[in-house]
C-alpha cells in the first residue's frame, strides 16, 4: 500500500515521505526541530527590544510610569485573554487531529483565526487613539499631559515592540488560514499533521511574547 518504487506515503494521507527520512516520525521530528531553531531566533530578535526596554526604564522609571498610564490596560487585558484563548484553540486543533477528528480540528483553527483578527481590531483602536492624542515619537510626540522626562522614548519602544508583535500576528493569521484549508481538504490525520504542529509552535510563541509585553507596557505601577 505504500506505493511503487521508492515513494512511501504516510499512512492514510497523500503525504510522500522525502527519501532522506527513515519514516514519517523521523520527518516530523526534523521539521519540529527546524521550527524550534527558528523560534530561538525569534526570541533573540525580540530580546534586543527587551534589552532596550530594560535600559530606558531603569534610567527613567518615573517617565515610564507616567507614560504607561496613557495605555488602556483594559484593552491590553482583553487582548491578553483573546490571545491566551487562541493558544488554547490552537493546541486543541492539534489534539483533535491526533484523535483523527478533522472536523473539530478545523473548527478550532477557525476560532484561532478569529481570535487573531479580534486582537488586531483591538490594536487598531489602540493605535488610532495614540495617533490622535499625539502619543508618538520624536517630533510627532505632541501630547502635553506627561511632565516627566522624554515620554516619546516610551512610545517609540511601544510602537516597535507591539508593531513587531502585531506583524507576527498578521503572518500567523496567513499561516493558520493555510493549514485550516489543508485540514478541510483532508491532508492531515493522526499520523501526519506536521504543518499544523509547527504552526501551533509559532503561534504559541506569539502568545508568549505578548505575555511579557502586557505587564511591561500596560501595567507599570
Amino acid at each position, binding site marked *: 500500500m505504500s506505493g511503487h518504487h521508492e515513494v512511501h506515503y504516510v499512512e492514510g494521507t497523500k503525504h510522500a515521505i522525502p527519501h532522506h527520512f527513515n519514516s514519517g*516520525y523521523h520527518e516530523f521530528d526534523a521539521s519540529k526541530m527546524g521550527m524550534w531553531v527558528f*523560534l530561538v531566533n525569534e526570541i*533573540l530578535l525580540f530580546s534586543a527590544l527587551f534589552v532596550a526596554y530594560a535600559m530606558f526604564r531603569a534610567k527613567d522609571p518615573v517617565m515610564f510610569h507616567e507614560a504607561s498610564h496613557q495605555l488602556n*490596560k483594559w484593552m491590553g487585558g482583553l487582548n491578553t485573554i483573546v490571545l491566551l484563548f487562541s493558544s*488554547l484553540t490552537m493546541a486543541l486543533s492539534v489534539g483533535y487531529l491526533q484523535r483523527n477528528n478533522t472536523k473539530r480540528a478545523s473548527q478550532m483553527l477557525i476560532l484561532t483565526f478569529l481570535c487573531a483578527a479580534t486582537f488586531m481590531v483591538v490594536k487598531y483602536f489602540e493605535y488610532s487613539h495614540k495617533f490622535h492624542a499625539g502619543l508618538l515619537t520624536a517630533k510627532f510626540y505632541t501630547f502635553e499631559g506627561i511632565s516627566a522626562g522624554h515620554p516619546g522614548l516610551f512610545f517609540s519602544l511601544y510602537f516597535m515592540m507591539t508593531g513587531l508583535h502585531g506583524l507576527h500576528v498578521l503572518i500567523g493569521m496567513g499561516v493558520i488560514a493555510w493549514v485550516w484549508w489543508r485540514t478541510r481538504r483532508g491532508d492531515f490525520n493522526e499520523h501526519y499533521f506536521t504543518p499544523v504542529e509547527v504552526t501551533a509552535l509559532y503561534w504559541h510563541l506569539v502568545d508568549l511574547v505578548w505575555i511579557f509585553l502586557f*505587564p511591561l507596557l500596560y501595567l507599570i505601577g
Partner: protein
Amino acid sequence: MAHHGNHKEEHHHVTPLEIFHKVFIALIGLTVLTVVTSLYDFGMMNMVVAMAIASLKAALVIMFFMQLKYDNILNQLCMISAILFVAIFILITASDVIVRDNGRPMRIEKAAQGGDDPALMNKLRAVTDDQVAKGKVLYANNCASCHGATGGGDGPGAAALNPKPRNFLSGEWKYGSSPTRIFTTITNGVKGTGMSSYSGMSVEERYALVHYVRSISPQKSDDSAEDLKAAGLDGDFSKFKPKQMVDVGIVMENMAQVDQVELPQDRQKFSDHPGAKLYAQHCASCHGLSGQGAKVTAVGVNPPIALYTTSWNGLQAGWIQDSSAFKKIVSEGLTGWGKPGIGHFNSDEWSQLYSYARALSGR
C-alpha cells in the same frame, strides 16, 4: 509498511485535552492576578512580581501548549539556551543602571516653572485696598529684613549689603516704578545683588507686594505702553501656556547626565572636612562644589528648567546659626524654588553636613 518497521517505539505524544483546558484556566487566573497586583504598589517589587507571574505563564505555555515537557532533549536545550541568552543580555547590559543608586531624594518636590499668566497679570495691575493690605503682611515677612520695617532701606540685613537695599521712602527707582516694572524686578531679582528672585511667589502675592511698595513711595508712574510690551502684556493672551509642574526628582536625575552646570570654581574647598564628600555627592550639583552657587540648566526635561542657587560665602541666613532650621530646609526642600527635599542622612551625617555648610559660609 517496511518503513514503519519500528512503529512501536515511534509515536506522537498525545496530551489529554483536559490538560489544555486546565492550563488555559490557570493562565486566565494568572492574568487576572497580574492586573490586580498592578493596582497595588510594592515599590521596587512591582517589576519583580509582574515578571514572576509572566514567567510562570510563559512556563505553562511552553511546557503544555508547546509540549516541550514531552519533547526531545535537543529541542529542550534550544529553548533553554534562548532563555539563558535573553537573561544574560538583559542582566549584563542593564546591570549598572539597575543597581545604581542615583541619589534620588526621598521626597520629590514639584518645582513650578514657565511664565506667569498674562491675563491674570493684566487684571491684577490695577490697585485695590485688599491687595495693599495683603502686600503689607507679605512685606513684613519677606522684605523688611533688608528694606526695613517702614521701607526706609534700613533693615537688619542691609548693613552687609552693597548695593544697599532700596529705600522706598526716597521715591527713587532704579528699575522703574510702574506696577509692571516692579513686578518684573520682584520676579527676576537683581543679579549680583542681595535682591533675589521671588518668582516662587504666586502672581497674586507678587502684585500685592507691588501695590504695597508703591503705596509707601512718594513718587511712582503708571504702566506705559513700553512697560506692558516689555512684560508681554500687549498682545493676545490666548496663546499662553499655564505653569507646568516639573518633578524635581527628574531634574536631578537628568542633571547627572547631559546638563550644563556652570561652576565658577572647580576645586572643592575644605575637601578634607568630614562633610565634604557627602556635600559633593548630594548638594554640589546645585550649590556648586564649594557652595559658591550655580546656574543649573536641566536640558534633559521637557520643558527645560533652570535653577539658580546663591553663594553661601558670607551669607546672612537663619540656618547658619540654627542647625534645626538647616535640617528643615534640607530635608523638606523649598517648594517653588526647585529645591528638593533630601533627608536620607543619619545623625552623624547631618552634623557633618551642617558643619561643612557653615564652613562654606565662612563661619
